[in-house]
């Protein structure tokens, strides 16, 4: 299993020396990335790091006026040595098919990638891989693995995207109450938990309060031949993230609970295992 990462900051520092791949967002076409890149910047990164597998997330909800940009970007990316494009909006799939772009695509509708039937549907559509939802249990991930040959990316570390809006909710609040403050990242506080919230001209994204720490299932995922583990460094100090990447690298040699505890320590005890071992409620009885 290879480790792919989302950078903790725009300058990658030494992170690229220690990972197999990266997942990046592109200006105006990506959601839930604190930092996005231009195609020119991506091009430079690709040239400098030929050993790294590059995944590009075009995971924004697309509006009609953005279709020309999307088409143009897809056509350019076709010529780049990237591993795959992760998509949310079906326009990405439709344009790829319509113009026979033949780019490897990964289905990445973050809360919808929850079953193998839909994974296989998209595989029949020519889609190569799936970014597994962080909202499902470990046993569901196992079932998907057993029932599809799609390549799988499973989130194992990081803050999780939990809300995407077209509305600029921070700006709306600040305008209403005449608050003049500009920051890259804010936090929503509720019941002593802090949820990172970011905003750009395309809307607002909110992330989980706790950092997913799935070190305990990492070895199992590897045994089950999951292709990629995703470590999201967003809102994490670069030095801490570097250490965490190292810890995931030595998971095979070390006891997973030891690694899990070290990660917990590094993240100031703000981690959990998300929904890997607890199901959500979906039948409310009256």
């Amino acid at each position, binding site marked *: 299993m290879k480790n792919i990462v989302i950078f903790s900051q725009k300058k990658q520092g030494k992170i690229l020396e220690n990972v197999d791949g990266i997942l990046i967002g592109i200006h105006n076409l990506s959601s839930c990335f604190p930092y996005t890149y231009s195609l020119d910047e991506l091009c430079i990164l690709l040239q400098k790091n030929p050993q790294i597998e590059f995944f590009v997330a075009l995971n924004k909800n697309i509006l*009609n006026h953005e279709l020309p940009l999307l088409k143009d970007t897809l056509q350019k990316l076709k010529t780049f040595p990237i591993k795959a494009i992760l998509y949310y909006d079906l326009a990405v*799939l439709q344009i790829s098919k319509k113009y026979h772009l033949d780019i490897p695509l990964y289905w990445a509708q973050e809360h919808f990638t929850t079953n193998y*039937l839909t994974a296989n549907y998209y595989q029949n559509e020519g889609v190569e891989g799936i970014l597994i939802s962080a909202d499902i249990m470990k046993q569901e991930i196992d079932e998907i693995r057993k029932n599809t040959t799609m390549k799988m990316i499973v989130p194992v570390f990081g803050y999780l995207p939990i809300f995407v*809006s077209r509305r600029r909710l921070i700006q709306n609040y600040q305008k209403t109450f005449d608050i003049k403050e500009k920051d890259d990242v804010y936090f929503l506080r*509720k019941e002593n938990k802090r949820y990172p919230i970011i905003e750009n001209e395309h809307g607002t994204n909110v992330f989980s309060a706790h950092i997913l720490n799935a070190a305990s299932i990492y070895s199992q995922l590897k045994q089950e031949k999951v292709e990629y583990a995703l470590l999201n460094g967003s809102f994490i100090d670069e030095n801490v993230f570097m250490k965490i990447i190292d810890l995931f690298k030595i998971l095979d040699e070390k006891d997973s609970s030891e690694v899990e505890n070290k990660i917990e320590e590094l993240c100031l005890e703000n981690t959990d295992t998300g929904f890997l071992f607890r199901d959500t409620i979906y039948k409310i009885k009256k």
Partner: protein
Amino acid sequence: MVELLAPAGDLERLKWAILYGADAVYCGGPTLGMRANTTNFTLEELKEGVLFSHQRGKKVYVTVNVVLHNEGIDTLESYLKSLEEIGVDAIIVSDPAIMDVALKTTKLHVHISTQQSTLNKEAVQYFADKGVSRIVLGRELSKENIEDIIKHTNIEIETFIHGSMCASYSGRCVLSNFFTGRDANRGGCAQICRWDFALENYKGRYIKGDKPFTFCTKDLSLLKYIPEMIDMGITSFKIEGRMRSVYYIATVVGIYRKVIDSYLHNLENYQYNKNYERILVNCANRESTPQFFHDIYDETCQYYNGRMEVSNQDFLGVVLDYNKETKIATIEQRNYFKKGDFVEFFGFDDKMISYTLDEIYDENMCMIEVVNHPKQVVQIKVKEPICAYYLMRIKRY
């Protein structure tokens, strides 16, 4: 002819929606629908609802729009076939695998749910190419966006015209999962977007406005723009609210029915009735705006009042029966009312009867002054003929 599509949280509300002028209703079946805490229909109830609707020339669409998990896969095909056997007119799905199974194994029409957040002509065309009948567009689109999609695709388009808004793109919010453990994409949404939060900067300093931060948005209302939306060629106008009361359903459906009909019957001389707008605002008890239709989604669309939602008290009772000879209406109470109140009876026809309550009788025809017990049945003399399914509300305007 444009379709008016109403929510039906249960069989009772299905009937109210149809009687008050909906051309079609959408409702959840026993499984895989997106409203876990409505009283979803059993297959038997669906059958009765379909029969009731079809007898009146109306349609029933069933939501099968949850995010599919592995555990729902085995029973999916048989469930879809049972919906086909019942005779539902279409299913509303968000998951393309459900679409695929439905199209391959049944003759059901398939509509793509707003949960998929279909917002552009390429995505619309993707689903059109697969053979679905209709797309329910995402709510983030402007008039120009919708026009562009209709112009460049050849498929039925459905848009929301009234009701609550998600603060997020539909399907991209799991606040409920993380705050309460209730799965937003499997019908458990706990409306966390209406909660208040403290907003902090990176250093933990409180960013303080006069009211707390919230995602909460005002409701959607496009009543004023119905004529231009009809002219745009939208196939179906959808009203949100499967969990709303019969009063809400009857009021909102009835008013949109009147507006649609009055425009279609009088294209040249149609005039907007401001009174309808006032009734709708009062009925929902929340402010509304055209939202994205005018490409405005700024601070004017947000709710920062930090208030508790207060339930509407205007709805006084349901007419169970009317005796034409004695002119006595039998009414089931829904909110407190009393002798001397100025009330209005309205039904699914155009009739509205304003009336001061001079005499109220209990079930034994003993005169009473106040009606203050939930679902209390009383008798009231109403000189003009009304009938069952009429509603009684406080007359405000």
